[in-house]
């Protein structure tokens, strides 16, 4: 079967990718600065792709993604720091907890659309943040100090699993149901798509991976504080998804990578950093309003290229 062979080759490539970087890391060929950069990119990819499922695929205008990130970060941090649990169960718990919140947010989406939904999700994110301020157990405003446990292995596996799940979900009858909701909810219902179920599903899966990203985030950056999970963080993630091209998974990955690099590059210009960043944003949107990839995938482009040569 062609498919099985393809899967095998992909699996092998993924394994090699992992091993090469891991080897370089343990041999010290990648210094801490670049290692840190990789982690940043990986976490941003997780955030962008998980939001892509909600906004890009299902068309639900959600701007409270930082809320899911926060839930994941805090749940995992409490488990590892306060309850002395190992990292792996903490990661999974972070995902599950965020997914539960995803379902909680998914419910209002049943009645709200467009900007009304956006405000509700924004409100959700803010409610999470403000609640964290007021829980002394997790340090309130001061936040929590978290051990550095995130490493290449965990992050790589998380990113790859997420991409496989979301890509496979999108390219299936279930994924097409999500797309149908994005395109026209009334028509989707008329085609027998249970929009309630699928919208909640999208929020739950998206939130699950955002929660896992939260676990990675918490155990990468030493400190978590509620202030880091405000609406500006949600916007940051939204910007990545839009820049990549709404509806394009590979676009989200590409944009997350590029923006992380741009960000690191701009650190060297502290005074003008944000001005330059905003200019990049405006210019890209003006000259490529559909985002870097539009709604296509890298694989489409490759196919076309191959098709032409053939």
């Amino acid at each position, binding site marked *: 079967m062609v498919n099985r062979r393809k899967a095998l080759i992909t699996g092998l490539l993924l394994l090699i990718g992992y091993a090469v970087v891991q080897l370089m890391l343990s041999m010290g060929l990648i210094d801490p600065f670049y290692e840190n950069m990789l982690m940043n990119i990986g976490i941003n990819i997780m955030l962008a792709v998980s939001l892509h499922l909600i906004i890009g695929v299902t068309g639900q205008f959600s701007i409270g993604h930082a809320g899911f990130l926060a839930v994941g970060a805090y749940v995992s941090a409490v488990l590892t720091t306060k309850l002395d649990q190992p990292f792996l169960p903490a990661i999974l718990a972070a995902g599950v907890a965020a997914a539960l919140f995803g379902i909680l947010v998914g419910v209002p989406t049943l009645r709200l659309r467009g900007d009304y939904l956006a405000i509700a999700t924004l409100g959700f994110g803010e409610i999470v943040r403000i609640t964290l301020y007021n829980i002394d157990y997790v340090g309130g405003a001061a936040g929590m100090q978290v051990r550095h446990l995130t490493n290449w292995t965990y992050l790589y596996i998380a990113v790859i699993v997420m991409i496989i799940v979301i890509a*496979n979900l999108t390219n299936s009858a279930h994924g097409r*149901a999500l797309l149908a909701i994005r395109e026209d909810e009334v028509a*989707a*219902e*008329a085609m027998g798509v249970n929009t309630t179920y699928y919208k909640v599903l999208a929020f739950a899966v998206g939130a699950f991976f955002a929660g896992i990203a939260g676990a990675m985030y918490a155990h990468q950056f030493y400190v978590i504080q509620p202030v880091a999970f405000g609406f500006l963080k949600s916007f940051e993630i939204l910007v990545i998804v839009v820049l990549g091209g709404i509806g394009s998974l590979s676009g989200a990955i590409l944009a997350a990578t590029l923006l992380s690099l741009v960000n690191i590059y701009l650190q060297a210009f502290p005074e003008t950093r944000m001005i330059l960043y905003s200019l990049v944003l405006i210019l890209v949107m003006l000259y490529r309003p559909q985002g870097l990839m539009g*709604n296509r995938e890298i694989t489409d482009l490759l196919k076309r290229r191959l098709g032409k040569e053939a």
Partner: protein
Amino acid sequence: MRVLETRGLGIRFGGLRAVQELDLFLDQGELVALIGPNGAGKTTVFNMLTGVYKPTEGEIRFFGERIDGMSPYALTRKGIARTFQNIRLFQQLSVLDNVRIAHQVNTHHTFIDSILRLPRFGREERRMLEESRALLETMGLLAVADEAARNLSYGQQRRLEIARALATHPKLLLLDEPAAGMNPRETHELMEMIERVRKTFGMTILLIEHDMSLVMNISERIYVLDHGVLIAHGGPEDVRKNPRVIEAYLGEAAEDALA
């Protein structure tokens, strides 16, 4: 067998009684038309039958089962499909995907199956693909299968709407002005296609249409609505001669246009 039956069906929008006291039925295999002046409430009837609007009065039975108040997707799963007066395709998706989405009503693989790509997933996806292609072929759309729906011409879009509705394997098909914006010849082709579909799939059809040549030629019975009230019901000949229908809907000169 009685496919559909409504009793005292009605709906209010604020003060407006858009449809009232409507009794209507369809038997297995019938093709029935619903006509009436603009704003008479025809589309609203469709919206109630498909669960888009919840009726405020009366009841709807589908094969004897009460269905009023059920959600649209559940009704589609029970076997009622429709097209929309203002075309509502999944604009950015391909023609093929538009049809495949409708097909998913009949799939059984779970979310987990598709993520893990278990064998059941592959089987069903292949079956869906084959059926969808076959359907596009019958509707003459196979050539544009990979085109985005919004790039189709108006007439093609109308046909895609019908294909999409058929893909849900309906027992009852509701068509809302399928010939709008088509010229007489295209209308004629459409008419033949509807007949064919009805024969091959043994379907029951309810049709809204302003094109009288189409309506009078293919429908077995006709219901006429005006201001939400049923003003006439019967075979084409009876309806055409009914003075109330002429006054409210057909107009005096209608006879020669239909000749």
